[in-house]
């Protein structure tokens, strides 16, 4: 058997594992980048091969536009879950942080912290998922970083993504813009992501036919904004769920809110899982849902725009913003009583994203 000069044995994506050399900045690392990261994520910017990517100045409608930058670390456990994996989640998470600002996403950067021993097949699948969803969103990963930590010092892989987007002049969707009289909408059923993750945790072992809602929301946001509805604030209710997101907005805007429990869309399987886990679905994470605060007069227009998009078919008006110096979020229960909807103390579901 003859070996070609210069032959380098390719990465063993079937049985190989991440080892310390993959983070050492030498040939093994270059090979990992070339044969795994660049193979999936490759594009002209990434191909520049420098420590940073040189990008054209952003323009919007022929004018220099405002930049939006968002960054988000992902430590989800387990790495693979129904409806996605840490790779797709890490792209969606950052795209959504841009989307709720009203920004059109342009570029992503990705930092990987790999644990020694991670099967290369797993990493391959994770990066492939990132590439797939980034491509679907039309947003290239233009630069990245790889580090390897010793076995036991990480948990497979952690991914931090940073996104850059452009924002048209005049658009301001800050959390401080909710006003008494505004309505509160959600784009779909709540708690799907958290329950999908919970169903995979080792010590819980229950099977729920539920997929994570992990999705990129900028298309839905674009459709919503294009409807012309007077949108005051957008958020994606991730960790802490709807309850945390609405409390944040209430405090930023100095207002209260009153929700209708019977109007909040929740899948029965999610409600059932939350029931026996002792969780409130309003505290459970989402990765593909929007919270929309908009002027009351435009509620139906916003609702129609959301429902016309595949990611918004279950959208609903769930409540209204009220004047309240205490910034309380309250809910009228299905029984007709009222209660507070508070931040959850601690973390019912650690490492959800």
């Amino acid at each position, binding site marked *: 058997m003859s070996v070609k000069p210069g032959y380098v044995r390719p990465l063993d994506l079937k049985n190989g594992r991440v080892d310390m050399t993959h983070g050492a900045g030498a040939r093994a690392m270059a090979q990992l980048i070339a044969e795994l990261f660049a193979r999936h994520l490759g594009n002209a910017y990434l191909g520049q091969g420098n420590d940073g990517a040189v990008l054209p100045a952003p323009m919007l409608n022929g004018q220099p536009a405002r930049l939006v930058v968002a960054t988000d670390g992902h430590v989800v456990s387990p790495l693979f879950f129904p409806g996605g994996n840490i790779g797709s989640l890490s792209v969606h998470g950052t795209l959504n942080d841009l989307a709720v600002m009203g920004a059109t996403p342009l570029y992503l950067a990705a930092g990987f912290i790999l644990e020694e021993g991670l099967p290369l097949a797993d990493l391959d699948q994770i990066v492939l998922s990132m590439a797939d969803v980034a491509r679907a969103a039309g947003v290239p990963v233009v630069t990245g970083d790889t580090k390897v930590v010793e076995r036991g010092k990480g948990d497979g892989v952690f991914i931090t993504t940073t996104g850059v987007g452009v924002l048209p002049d005049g658009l301001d969707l800050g959390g401080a813009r909710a006003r008494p009289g505004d309505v509160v909408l959600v784009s779909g059923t709540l708690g799907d992501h958290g329950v999908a993750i919970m169903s995979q945790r080792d010590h*819980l072992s229950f099977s729920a036919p539920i997929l994570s809602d992990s999705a990129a929301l900028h298309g839905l946001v674009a459709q919503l904004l294009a409807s012309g509805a007077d949108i005051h604030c957008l958020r994606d209710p991730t960790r802490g769920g709807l309850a945390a997101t609405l409390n944040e907005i209430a405090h930023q805007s100095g207002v209260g809110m009153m929700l209708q429990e019977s109007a909040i869309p929740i899948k029965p399987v999610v409600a059932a899982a939350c*029931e026996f*886990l002792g969780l409130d679905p309003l505290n459970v994470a989402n990765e593909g849902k929007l919270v929309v605060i908009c002027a009351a007069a435009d509620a139906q227009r916003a609702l129609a725009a959301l429902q016309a998009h595949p990611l918004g078919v279950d959208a609903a008006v769930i409540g209204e913003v009220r004047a309240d110096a205490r910034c309380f979020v309250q809910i009228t229960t*299905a*029984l*007709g009583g009222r209660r507070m909807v508070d931040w959850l*103390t*601690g973390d019912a579901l650690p490492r959800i994203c």
Partner: protein
Amino acid sequence: MRQHEPAMKYIDEFRDGALARTLASKIAAQVQPGRHYSFMEFCGGHTHAISRYGLTELLPHNVRMVHGPGCPVCVLPMGRIDMAIRLALDHGVILCTYADTLRVPASGGLSLMKAKARGGDVRMVYATQDALQIARSNPDRQVVFFAIGFETTTPATALAMLQAQREGLTNFSVLCCHVLTPPAMRQILAAPEHPPGGGVQIDGFVGPAHVSIVIGSQPYEVFARQFHKPVVIAGFEPLDVLQAVWLLVRQVNAGRADVENEFARAVLPGGNPKAQACMDEVFEKRDTFEWRGLGELPQSALKIREAFAALDAERRFQLVYQPVLDHKACECAAILRGMKRPQDCAIFGSVCTPDNPVGSCMVSSEGACAAHYSYGRHQDGVA
């Protein structure tokens, strides 16, 4: 909640808004104007349901619900948490327990959660079986299950111990802090602060749900007979609670003091004999046990029988219980006896919050203070 498919069978029926309004108007029609009704819901599960569904707003103004001591982590005195922390930090065991227990304040500003951050191997489990499994998977480590709760959780602990004994698991043991419901109810009724001597009025009890599945309805007969207080055993769903209030109002109006069973779908007069036998095989009554709020109560808690001494963490690690004084300003003790409401405590919602609890009642969602803070403080009318 808006649901797209069939609802949760056997649960949503007990959360029906229309039925709730019907029951609320039945209660309103039943109460006599000018008369005040004060009922203690014994269990934290009821406290939670009342707060979670906003039930007080559905009740007439002259019906007051008084929160009872039936929240498992609330009645644990600090000294017991200290024992668990010593196991985790000094003895290096894997300490397993139910989630709410992790945040209960202990001595020296610690909690099990904070002990974990200091290197203790503290793990949250959903079931005693999880703790057993951790013991099987870590044969070179000592694994202790910190067992808390009323009669509801006791059979599961007993079962795990029987299983451990059968399997000959030598690295598993239990720190038993299980407590009993009837002695606590007796203490509340016998306490001098209750009428006729003045203090808080209790006209009847919403009796325990899950506890009663295990012990049955008979143990409450004595409260009806001896103390002339009606007891209505009720489930933890909001309609259960409303139905129980209606039955209690009827009893009070009629001058009756009976044990009624609203939770007949789950509770039998004799309870669950199999679970009782299981508990009895493994546990016996302690001579005395300190409760937070209620003090030392004779025959009010369980310890591990001699035959299971090998599985007793108190014996294995030679732990000695040391009582600890509660925070001076904390009113948990009075709140657990129904003497004060959470909002009567000077540090409620300021120094003491669910994120930074001073007293145990601010920890569990079943605790009176946490329930009021998380669900009910909009009623307080203060910023």
